[in-house]
């Protein structure tokens, strides 16, 4: 019979050190604390005070919770705590592995639609050749993409309206596949298009080459046509018909849509969702108006305050949750991204919300004129005659000059929110990102000023709201099921089916 030691023989010595964490007081009076790896705990005021005064002891469950999630380091097994934290931190930041993964090709800046809020400052459909990418620029841009160390990249055709020059899309796919034969990267192809010019020939090509389609749908007919007019045609009828055609030819998962919120949209949160549901789309990406291009000039007509956007977003999300509770799986993509950041150990490669910022590191834009920009927003600025984020030119500059040049170095000085005033001690910064391009566009300063930043206001609000959902889900199984169906992209009705894993 062995002699067993009591638990007391295994307890740490009294006292502990803090490991890095940030905190905020919630409206409930409790404290949310978040650590480097994105794990969080909610503590009562009493527990929070005891913890921060180094008075909490092993008699309390919260002591062990704090130790298990590496908020504190005591005398028992320091190395394991540090090792686990390091490993989780590396995993969370693994979106950096392999460098730039999203390569955007602006094959033409011409467009057949006349959206009031156009952020890219499109040229008229009838504009001359100077508005399209030359073959030489296309080929050189693809060479740069393939020179990138990332083993898997996304090649995204943007516009303007990319279907106006489908020949360039075809050539881009052909040339990249040919060049890639000896390189062996995994290349995913996406066309961003308003779908109004879709033909059977284009669809056949997309099917053959596994090209996915990302389109825009702003809501019901009146709203869509108001936001996204086409001269003497019903844009809504054309786009919905073509979404169905594309879904039929390529499968529903190969077609996604996003909506841009105009002032008019604010009135129709439910109707917009119903429109998406009717088309069999499984998610919606709700985007606020970006401060670029025509959207700035048209601000009086289509703009709104960030507070208005937030209440619209909240109303829409509540409606989406209701739809899910009634048994229809449908997600909002921004909320899903944030949930993935908060609730999983995995990295999230979303270039608009990450630290280090996506600009240049996660995404690069090859513009129709051969200039290379650090992000989609960077080239939008360029159309407004501000080339602050121009990294170089595909004809004139080498890979090194473009990706490690002065502009990129200046971006790198301010692309980590861990080192930005107003971000570095924010409880939510692990889930948020730095955005020097937007800071510059709205505040004329790469570094930015958080107290007056709409980007900060919006993300703080949405993150708080998502945390309310996360907290509520701990005691609400049906909500928990919905959130995890979104994160894991599964059917909410089958979440409890034991054989249902993928």
């Amino acid at each position, binding site marked *: *019979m*062995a002699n*067993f*030691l*009591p*638990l007391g*023989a*295994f*307890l*740490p010595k009294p006292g502990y050190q803090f490991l890095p964490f940030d905190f905020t007081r919630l409206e409930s009076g409790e404290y949310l604390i978040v650590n480097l*790896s994105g*794990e969080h705990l909610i503590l009562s005021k009493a527990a929070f005070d005891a913890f921060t005064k180094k008075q909490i002891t*092993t008699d309390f*469950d919260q002591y*062990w*919770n704090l*130790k*298990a*999630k590496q908020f504190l380091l005591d005398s*028992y*097994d320091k*190395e*394991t705590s540090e*090792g*686990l934290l390091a*490993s*989780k931190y590396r995993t969370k930041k693994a979106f950096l592995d392999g460098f730039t993964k999203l390569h955007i090709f602006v094959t033409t800046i011409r467009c057949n639609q006349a959206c009031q809020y156009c952020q890219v400052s499109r040229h008229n459909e009838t504009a001359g050749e100077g508005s399209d990418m030359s073959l030489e620029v296309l080929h050189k841009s693809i060479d740069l993409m393939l020179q990138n160390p990332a083993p898997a990249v996304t090649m995204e055709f943007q516009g303007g309206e990319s279907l106006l020059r489908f020949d360039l899309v075809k050539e881009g796919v052909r040339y990249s596949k040919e060049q890639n034969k000896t390189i062996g990267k995994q290349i995913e192809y996406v066309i961003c298009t308003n779908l109004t010019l879709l033909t059977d020939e284009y669809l056949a090509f997309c099917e053959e080459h596994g090209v996915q389609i990302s389109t825009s749908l702003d809501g019901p007919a009146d709203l869509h046509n108001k936001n996204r007019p086409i001269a003497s045609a019903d844009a809504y009828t054309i786009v919905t018909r073509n979404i169905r055609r594309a879904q039929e030819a390529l499968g529903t998962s190969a077609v996604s849509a996003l909506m841009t919120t105009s002032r008019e949209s604010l009135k129709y949160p439910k109707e917009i969702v119903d429109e998406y549901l009717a088309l069999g789309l499984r998610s919606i990406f709700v985007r606020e108006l970006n401060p670029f291009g025509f959207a700035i000039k048209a601000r009086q007509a289509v703009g709104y305050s960030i507070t208005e956007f937030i209440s619209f977003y909240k109303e829409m999300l509540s409606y989406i949750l209701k739809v899910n509770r009634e048994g229809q799986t449908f997600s909002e993509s921004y909320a899903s991204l944030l949930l993935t950041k908060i609730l*999983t*150990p*995995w990295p999230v490669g979303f270039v608009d919300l990450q630290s280090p910022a996506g600009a240049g590191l996660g995404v690069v834009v090859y513009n129709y004129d051969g200039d290379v920009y650090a992000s989609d927003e960077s080239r939008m600025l360029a159309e407004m005659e501000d080339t602050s984020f121009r990294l170089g030119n595909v004809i004139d500059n080498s890979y090194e000059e473009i990706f490690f040049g002065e502009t990129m170095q200046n971006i790198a000085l301010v692309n980590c929110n861990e080192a930005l005033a107003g971000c570095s001690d924010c409880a939510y910064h692990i889930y948020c990102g730095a955005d020097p391009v937007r800071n510059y566009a709205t505040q004329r300063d790469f570094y930015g000023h958080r107290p007056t930043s709409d980007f900060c206001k919006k993300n703080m609000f949405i993150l708080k709201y998502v945390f309310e959902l996360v907290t509520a889900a701990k005691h609400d*199984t049906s909500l*928990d*099921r919905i959130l*995890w169906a979104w994160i*894991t992209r599964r059917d909410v009705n089958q*979440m*409890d089916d*034991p*054989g249902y*894993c*993928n």
Partner: protein
Amino acid sequence: MKLHTKASAVGINNRLVAKITNTPIAEKREDYFLIVEDVDSDLDCTGYAGILTKRLPELNKIMTPWIGGFDNMELLKPGYIISVEQNGFTHVIYRPESHNNTLFVTGRCNNNCIMCPQPPTDSEDLGWIESHLRFIDLLDADLERLCITGGEPTLLGNGLVDILKKATIRLPSTEFYMLTNGRQFAEEGYVQKIAAIPDLKLLCAIPVYSDVAPLHDHIVQAKGAFAETVKGLHNLARYQLPVEIRIVLHKQTIPRLLPLVEFIYRNFPFVNHVALMGLENMGYVKNNWEQLWIDPVDYQDELEAAVRYLHYRQMAVSIFNLQLCILNPSLHPFARQSISDFKKIFLDQCNSCASQDSCAGLFKSSETRHSRGIKPLTTEDRTNSLAN
């Protein structure tokens, strides 16, 4: 079902491992024990590993080992592999019809868990390696699965690597399932050696009993064990070796079960499977009953929350060793028939149960001490359970 029997033996110098045959054979006699009803003077017994018989004959000259006077001779069937100690103690170590064949490689362990059903021994086991290799030679090539256990198998060091190498070559289609505490895997070089075995099909089943080191180390009664197991798990992941995490459910693990599965998901999201296991009332459990026993009907909420937590996160999860009648119906689809055939029983009241054919049953050791919730399920219960 007992798998061992006492006997008397003559002519044995070392532990013998061989397969039983009841018909005389011409070749490779050293791999076989010939089993005979009665001793016939004409019997040609040269070359066999040994002769098994009811009663030992009077022998003048011992050429071949003889084993006889078994307590339970019905146990010995042709095709079985047995081991025989010098004192005649005989163990059935392989039955072709069983799904629970096990290679018990050592009795030693560097943990001393408070609920260990088979407490470690100090036996000198390095000499066993040869007989383990021999055992592998005798196995049928179509064997589906072999469990490697102990004690702590990795304490054999390179001996274990040799066993795995040989087993992988000899049994290319067999899946190996090793019960280990994973502590030796903290040494990266050791994991590297195992991972380098070509075509290895090995799943390591490793227990993690708490999300914090002191509580885990208390349960396994070894300071520093948690640190090594955690490091071991990460090393196994680094070399892409499949891992199952095992949690035994008892009074020490239930209070932090949800934080524990959360810890597993956040730190070891790569694991292939998590097994939540009912207690086996054997070994130390009997001594530490008060410290360990909590009736499974009293921890269904905790268990359900843990299973749901993992399942929503796409982590494969199973419940081992618990009976359907005491599990919440939502948990029935996760329950596995995990109790080995030779340890499994049903109680009298189970005879009228409609779900007996899909139930894990009970450990033989739970015959008298078991959950107060054991009761026969009706056909209606069964329908509900299948609907889940």
